């Protein structure tokens, strides 16, 4: 009687797991179908429809490098430079080494005159890997070092070998941390998405303007005041802009559900 009860519980759990797995697979299949449908709309030149489907997918299912890239392409072809740059930058965060993303972002910037200053060598080195890759690498090095030393408690290892390995691991860990810190700066950037954004002298309506800031420019937020932010652009210009004129590259799902 007792084993009957146990079997019943086990079967219930298996059924719940299977139902969950089925739901997940169905959702994934639907996401893929939507993605392909948006791709077809893009190829057919129906950019508005393609953008709408990509945006819905990103808001409800999440983002991937390919989704951000395809959405960016749609924006770029639709003339929405700011949002295109934003999505290319997001795609680059997820897939830093992807050549397609780099190429299209570069072409878009050239076409729109959004030229960037040469970045110093140390920033180039930091850009070899993405933030997550640097972080994972640093964590792996730390864990491997810990396991190695745990092993040396049980098995005898040459002291010189142990010291050299420890020093090398710590050096690599520091390099990974530095790379991660450089990449983390990119995660804190935002992109101007409003086509008529202006740098204002003060954070309120009707304040004097110090100039136009082009759509698609990368900016950093220095501080916030009500619905305005004091920003600094790639060329060192600073001023206040309304919150509605830019979007952060890094985001949560809640951010992504908000209309841009």
């Amino acid at each position, binding site marked *: 009687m007792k084993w009957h009860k146990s079997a019943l519980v086990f079967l219930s759990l298996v059924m719940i797991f299977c139902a969950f797995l089925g739901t997940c697979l169905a959702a994934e299949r639907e996401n893929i179908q939507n993605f392909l449908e948006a791709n077809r709309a893009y190829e057919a030149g129906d950019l508005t429809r393609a953008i709408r489907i990509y945006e819905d997918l990103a808001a409800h299912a999440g983002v991937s490098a390919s989704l951000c890239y395809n959405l960016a*392409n749609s924006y770029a072809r639709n003339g929405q430079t700011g949002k295109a740059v934003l999505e290319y930058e997001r795609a680059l965060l997820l897939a830093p080494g992807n050549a397609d993303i780099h190429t299209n972002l570069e072409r878009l910037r050239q076409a729109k005159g959004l030229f960037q200053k040469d970045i110093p060598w140390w920033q180039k080195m930091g850009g070899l890997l993405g933030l997550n890759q640097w972080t994972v690498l640093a964590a792996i090095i730390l864990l491997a070092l810990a396991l190695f030393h745990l092993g040396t408690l049980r098995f005898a290892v040459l002291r010189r070998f142990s010291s050299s390995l420890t020093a090398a691991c710590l050096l690599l860990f520091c390099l990974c941390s530095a790379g991660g810190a450089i990449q983390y700066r990119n995660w804190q950037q935002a992109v101007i998405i409003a086509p008529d954004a202006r740098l204002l002298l003060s954070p309120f309506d009707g304040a004097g303007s110090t100039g136009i800031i082009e759509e698609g420019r990368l900016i950093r937020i220095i501080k916030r005041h009500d619905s305005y932010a004091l920003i600094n652009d790639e060329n060192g210009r600073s001023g206040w802009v309304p919150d509605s004129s830019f979007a952060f590259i890094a985001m949560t799902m809640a951010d992504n559900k908000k209309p841009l």
Partner: protein
Amino acid sequence: MVLWLLLAILGAATVSHAAASMVSASLDPRSFSVDQAATLTITINDGDGTIGELPQVDGLDFERRGQSSQHQWMNGSLSSSVSTIYQVQAFRPGSYTIPSISITVDGKQLQTEAIAFEVTPAAAVVPQQGGGVAPLPLTGDEAGQLAFLRVTSVKGKSYVGEVLPLEIKAYFRRGLRASLNSQPRLNGDGFVLTQSNKEPAQTEEVVDNVPYAVLTWPGTLSGIKEGRQNVSITIEATLLLPDKRRRSAPLGGDPFFGNDIFADFFNQQQLQEKKIQIVSKDMALQVLPLPTEGKPADFSGAIGKFDLQVKAQPTEVGLGDPITLTMTVQGTGNFDRVDAPVLSRTEGWKSYSPSSKMTAGARVGQGSKVFEQAIVAKDMDKTTIPPLSFSFFDPEAGKYQTLRSDPIPLRVTKDENAGKNEQLSSGANGQGASNNTTAKDAGSGDGQGRPDGAGARAGENGAGQAGHPDASGMNLAPLHSQLGSLQQGLLPLASRTSFQIVALISFLLLVAVISLKIRARRLANNPALCRHREMVQLLEYSLREIEKSRQQGNTQDFLAVCRKAMQEQLGFIWQTEPGAITLADLRQRLAPDAELITLFATAESGAYVVESPLSRQEMVEYAGKLERELRQLQ
């Protein structure tokens, strides 16, 4: 008698001559304008004299400026003179006479000669900007002030963002020494005051016959908050005023080491600093919101009066060659809000971001802004560059205006060198093919350069304006066909809790392992510590054995284990073989009254006795004592 008379006449003449030469007064110059001053010098030669009160003359003002002394040794005789200097100012033009001034020299009353002079009208006054408009008369508040501030009249009503030129004038009574401590500052938060970085212009003005030194700042006011507001301007200055306390002292100076004496000697005047804040009258200004009705889609916030000129070069290009549009917006208004004009039709055109250069005009708010923008024709069938439009709000008319340029004829060829050839030829003839077109009224078509109404342009500013050209010509890499793994949001891995836990565990594990290794290494390098540790371990083992044998109740075994434990612990301490330690050794090496000797003796005797010497209770007490003694050895 005759001789006495001659001598008396000669003596009187000599005295008279001496008296005449002892005091004198002179005025320099004898003719000056009301905005200038003359210097009156009263000189006393070879004597100690006191100048009495200066005569009161209607329309004249005397101000003592200092005293100087001169000593001269000539032909064996010493001569000296003391000169007192006054500044003479006239309030109005006319002929004046300074009457004789009474001076007491060595107890004698002497008089200077009267001085006649002319005061002319203020011919030297610098003409004022705007055609030499006569300054307004002094108001009641200004009349008694040494300095005051005026702001040229600003129109009472303006729109948000509208630039209102103004002139700030600070008036200082002439002759007053003053220094500025601040730039003009606006009181009130509804406006922004913008000034040029240049130094203020310095002029002189006569207001109600009073001469003033005037500092003038040109600037602009811009309303940033709607509604009625009171604003005023403030500047801070330091005035250097004569120290009246000292001047009014008896005999004109301090009785003890009076500074006036030394100051006068070095031709200085005692001055005191007085910090003042000069505030202009409140101006009641009303700021109106911009109307929403008829607002053009491309309105960027420009308010004022503007003209538009557009040039394009070259106008004969190869397909894909850039054409440079030079767009000049000139006029009066808030140029910071003036954006580049936009193409009315962008289909088939690719536009680049425009650059701009601002050139300020002669007056504040005037100027011209030149935009250069590259555009590229994407089709060969283009025959004109479409009109460019620029919208602004005209505050005088109270409505939005849109300027529109004429279409510029264009020829697009397949020849890639077409544009280059044309540029060369245009450089040669000085005119070239550049098309210069002036904005004209699109609605009326009369070509007078008047702007049309905003409504005329409504609905034409469709999608794909200059800011959003179709980017299909960018040759983008193809779409990705694989969706990839989706993730919720785009947050760094390091900010996720699961990753943080793994990283923390790795870190703690590493720290723990390294700590263990350090401890093990320290132990290995310290024999005393090792021995102590072994001793402790041995003791714990022995105590466990003692407890086991006690529970079994076998007295012989119990005492044997106790004896062995004592031997082992003492052997560790004495570095000898434990089995060789006897009661004699204990008696020799421990204190005579040591408890351990008694315990060892009991254990040794009991080990060889067949009959149990200890009850269970005694075993418990024995074990307790032994444990205490052995732990003390640690």
